[in-house]
């Protein structure tokens, strides 16, 4: 299924903390990232991909376009999705993650805005975020070019022109060519897996020093 990248604007993460941000000693455990889409029309969300950086749990809220005159509401479409099985250890901390439409709790038909709520309850990590965030929408299902009419609606079968003497029958030739093609494909596919690898260049393997690059 094809997908199309939707250009988005990712706002900087905002930490949620209780108490005065300046005087509070601890590190925030909740971050909120807003994602807006400069092209104003609502689209159907297909996939979200990102690289995790020490976020333990992810919640996604979406604001959808409603046809009526009521203002658009925020709905939770993914709740506490676990990215790190143990928030105190490295497991899953730097993985690439893909989230799909079918994993969401609600319909993602007319998305206006996204809000990612990141949680990392462990005090061991200095910072956490998600990187390389990319949003995809449904790509076009079939190629948009139109076929010329004569391809999709072949005309009535005409009588083939009289064959010149001595030429072989075209249908037999085409079937033989097809068989030969199938044979070459088979031979190409069945090459032996053991390779006698050569490590020298034209028989020469005179080296002085190792290279650092």
């Amino acid at each position, binding site marked *: 299924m094809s997908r199309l990248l939707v250009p988005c604007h990712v706002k900087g993460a905002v930490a949620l903390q209780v108490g005065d941000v300046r005087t509070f000693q601890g590190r925030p455990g909740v971050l909120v990232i807003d994602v807006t889409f400069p092209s104003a029309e609502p689209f159907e969300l297909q996939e979200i991909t990102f690289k995790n*950086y*020490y976020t333990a749990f992810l919640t996604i809220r979406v604001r959808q376009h409603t046809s009526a005159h009521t203002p658009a509401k925020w709905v939770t479409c993914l709740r506490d999705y676990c990215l790190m*099985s*143990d928030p*105190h*250890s*490295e*497991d899953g901390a730097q993985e690439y993650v893909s989230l799909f439409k079918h994993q969401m709790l609600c319909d993602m038909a007319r998305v206006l805005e996204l809000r990612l709520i990141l949680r990392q309850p462990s*005090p*061991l*990590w*200095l*910072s*956490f975020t998600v990187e390389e965030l990319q949003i995809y929408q449904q790509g076009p299902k079939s190629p948009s070019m139109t076929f010329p009419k004569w391809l999709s609606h072949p005309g009535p079968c005409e009588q083939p022109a009289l064959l010149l003497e001595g030429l072989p029958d075209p249908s037999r030739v085409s079937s033989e060519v097809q068989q030969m093609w199938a044979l070459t494909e088979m031979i190409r596919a069945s090459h*032996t897996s*053991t*390779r*006698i*690898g*050569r*490590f*020298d*260049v034209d028989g*020469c*393997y*005179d*080296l*002085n*020093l*190792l*290279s*650092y*690059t």
Partner: protein
Amino acid sequence: MRKAQGSWEKRILKSLNSMCTELSIPLARKRPVGQQKELLNKWNEMGTDEPDLSLFRPVYAPKDFLEVLINLRNPNYENGDSLSFRTHLGLIQVPLKVKDIPELKECFVELGLNTGQLGIDDSTQVPPELFESEHVRIGQKVLAEQDSAAAQQYIRQGSPTALRAELWALILNISSQPEDILYYEQLKTNVIQHDLLVDSLIYKDVKLTASNDDYYFVFEDYLYQVLLCFSRDTSVLAHFAYNSASPPKSYIRGKLGLEEYAVFYPPNGVIPFHGFSMYVAPLCFLYHEPYKLYQTFREMYVRFFFRLHSISSHPSGIVSLCLLFETLLQTYLPQLFYHLREIGAQPLRISFKWMVRAFSGYLATDQLLLLWDRILGYNSLEILAVLAAAVFAFRAVNLMEVTSLASAEAVLADLSTLKVMPLLQIFLFATVT
């Protein structure tokens, strides 16, 4: 982790390059025809050669590698001075996820007290009808069926000595086709044609380690035949796809910077370190044809042994094994751990060399082969860390009385009398926690 691996590799390259320039020996050169003939004649007795290796030194030893691992730090990790609930009291400071004993019990369930084991239930006091004969019969059936998955499950309870060579070949998917024999002969030709600096390192390593070992000195010639061919084998380069390490590069003399003349050095991308030949030595008891010995070693290396000397976060990687060892010791023998730490004898400093060599050269050979049976059966190296902790648990009483690192090393210097399977079983399943 990748950064650390990259800078470690750079250090190795620098060390090798400086050895080249100091000794004025090229990394690689074509052997003159006269020398080629000589080597071909001496192929089966390279051990009798006594080249002058005094100027060569191993590129690195396990303890250098340990220093690199101790200094691994995650920049995003709270490494503050204040003690918190997750302060690492051991040497490894990276918070990887490791299993604890309940999880290990689940993982190694076939080592439990209610399951028969070779290494325990085949001792002379136990009548063979209870376990051993039936186990051998099942082993023969598995071999007759040529079922690799069944062999892997079977070998978790140990392999009878007579069947071991074939079982390992079955599990490692080693065939004895004519093309494999031909491949080995081609590698032999490559050894004869080109002379590499790495060859001298291999000679030195074998002379320093295996030749001095009571069990393995008889196999010296085999070790040269296997290791020299191993360093010419470009098929080993394929394992770098799943190894965090990268093979060193070089350029043909006079063509520096031209990509068409870039090659890997050594051809298999693996620079041997002090003790490397001990990975091959135990296999010499199982296989007598050089090409079979070679194939088994190569397969064991690209599946398991490479993880013991490269930095990665894999659960069987050396960093995780070290952390697993330290965590097990800290959790289940806290008094011993605290005592050793107080006297300046961090346990990992003693057990690291055991784990890097997969206990080769430290255990008696029959015990070592029983241990390597389980590595193949469980497809994981975690058992090495569990055994290291079990050894400490076994000698805990003596260790509690030592007062320095040197005396702790002395208590643990000789492991050749240990029986591996009872130690593992007691540590995992019979210790009161």
